């Protein structure tokens, strides 16, 4: 897809989803749609570090929680509008991601993963013991019932997440095709060879982790307004971590399309099963799909489709 076509398609997708949502009267659709879009942002953000640079981050729940709690703090102090909260949440978690990266990105493989998981647990513990934001009891957020021109608040949150998803996907695609993206691919393939080819590997990894964690924090920032009651156990839920790793792996990590397909597919299945069966099945679904994926499509759905096409092309 050319760049012009991509922007047209993205804008069209946002407008169509928005227009379609005007026809929907059932609020549940917006509650579910918000979650799906939030996972588009998270999976896309995760893939910038995990897919492009090959560093597996097990700390998604930490960055969602940081974004959410930076909103709680600001809400108590000033109460700015959602876009400001998203921006601040992004900056705070991006900065914490950068700090974490500085300490851990010299570690490879398993060690980096363990460090990110430990970070998420440490931050959760700190927040749980911080009375100002409600501690372990949690905190209630009172949100307005309506937003001018848009309607109910949940419609507004849905729209905000829709725009954020478009921004995240556009960012990922831009990175993928840039010189920066080339550098990340070189790092993923062979870090020593990348260095001796002139790639400043540490600097590139730090930029990637800042962008990735920043977007995760942005996805988490509206969460207190979405749930209206937030406690550390739900803000730092490890389900975010599991889902966010599974989605790009199922969709395919090589390009921006994979996380989008994985997130929409998996999150939709989870939302449907939550209504029709039980939310207890959500992690089981992730596990089973991941297993199938490892066996049938090690390069994700995108890899499977590309492989089929290539083979068809060679045959004909």
């Amino acid at each position: 897809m050319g760049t012009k076509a991509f922007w047209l398609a993205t804008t069209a997708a946002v407008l169509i989803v928005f227009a379609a949502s005007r026809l929907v009267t059932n609020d549940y659709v917006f509650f579910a749609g918000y979650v799906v879009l939030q996972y588009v942002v998270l999976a896309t953000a995760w893939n910038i570090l995990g897919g492009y640079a090959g560093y597996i981050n097990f700390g998604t729940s930490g960055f969602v929680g940081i974004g959410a709690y930076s909103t709680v703090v600001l809400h108590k102090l000033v109460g700015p509008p959602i876009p400001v909260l998203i921006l601040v949440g992004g900056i705070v978690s991006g900065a914490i991601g950068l700090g974490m990266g500085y300490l851990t990105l010299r570690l490879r493989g398993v060690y980096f993963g363990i460090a990110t998981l430990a970070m998420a647990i440490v931050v959760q513990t700190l927040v749980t013991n911080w009375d100002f934001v409600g501690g372990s009891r949690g905190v209630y957020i009172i949100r307005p019932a309506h937003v001018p021109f848009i309607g109910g608040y949940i419609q507004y949150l849905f729209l905000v997440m829709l725009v954020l998803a478009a921004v995240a996907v556009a960012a990922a695609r831009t990175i993928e095709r840039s010189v920066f993206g080339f550098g990340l691919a070189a790092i993923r393939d062979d870090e020593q060879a990348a260095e001796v080819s002139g790639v400043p590997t540490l600097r590139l990894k730090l930029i990637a982790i800042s962008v990735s964690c920043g977007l995760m924090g942005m996805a988490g920032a509206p969460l207190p307004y979405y749930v209206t009651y937030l406690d550390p156990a739900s803000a730092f839920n490890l389900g975010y971590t599991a889902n966010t790793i599974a989605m790009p792996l199922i969709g395919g990590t090589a390009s921006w399309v994979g996380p989008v397909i994985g997130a929409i597919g998996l999150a939709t299945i989870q939302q449907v099963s939550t209504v029709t069966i039980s939310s207890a099945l959500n992690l089981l679904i992730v596990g089973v799909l991941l297993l199938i994926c490892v066996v049938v499509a090690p390069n994700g759905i995108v890899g499977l489709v590309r492989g089929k096409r290539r083979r068809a092309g060679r045959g004909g």
Partner: protein
Amino acid sequence: MADDLLSVDKLGKRFGGFVALDGIDLTVRAGERLGLIGPNGSGKSTLVNCLSGTLRNDSGTVRFDGNLLNGLAAHRRTRLGLARSFQLPKPFRSLTVVENLRVPLYYSVNARPGAPHLAEAAVGERCRELLRLVGLEAKADRQPQDLTQIEMRKLELARALAAEPKLLIADEAMAGLSNSEVDNILALLMRLGDRGIAVILIEHIMRAVISFSQRLVVLVAGRKIADGDPHAVVRDPEVVRAYLGE
């Protein structure tokens, strides 16, 4: 000396208690063709790693083109003009052959302060030139996994050359190649010398090293035991006993 491109002074490297390099002194002049030989495990690749910044040396100094390299990250050394190939080729596996060459062009050639920036078209042209130089034009859009072992070595060399080095260190670029292929690569490396690029060639194939080198250095067990005219060095009794005689 002032006109030395590379000068290594008392370089040392240990792995735990094992001394891999012990007080290595070495100089290379601009455009010089230097051969480096030694038995397996004598520390040749370790020396390359310490020069290119892949490993940190424990003692001694490395100067290159007027810069002190100690503590400098590998990517900075490459940008200064010191490029190397790996003994076991390390291609970027998810990139095509031609894209492999783009990485040093973007990050080394285009990252040099003060040097003219290559536009996209010039980068493409440069890639084609390099592929032609090593004879890989036909494989430009293939993945490294589709290459033979020999083609992989050529890619490794081409990628090092793409960084526009003043000094190229080729770590056993010819292992496993047939006679004509060895001649092929040798001719290529010779042409680099004509362009003023210095080359350190690490090689076990004596015929190749002797015909290539203007000067020959011998490492044994982490120490330099000989350094001089290739024909004199190979007749040196100590070299014969420690390396050639085995």
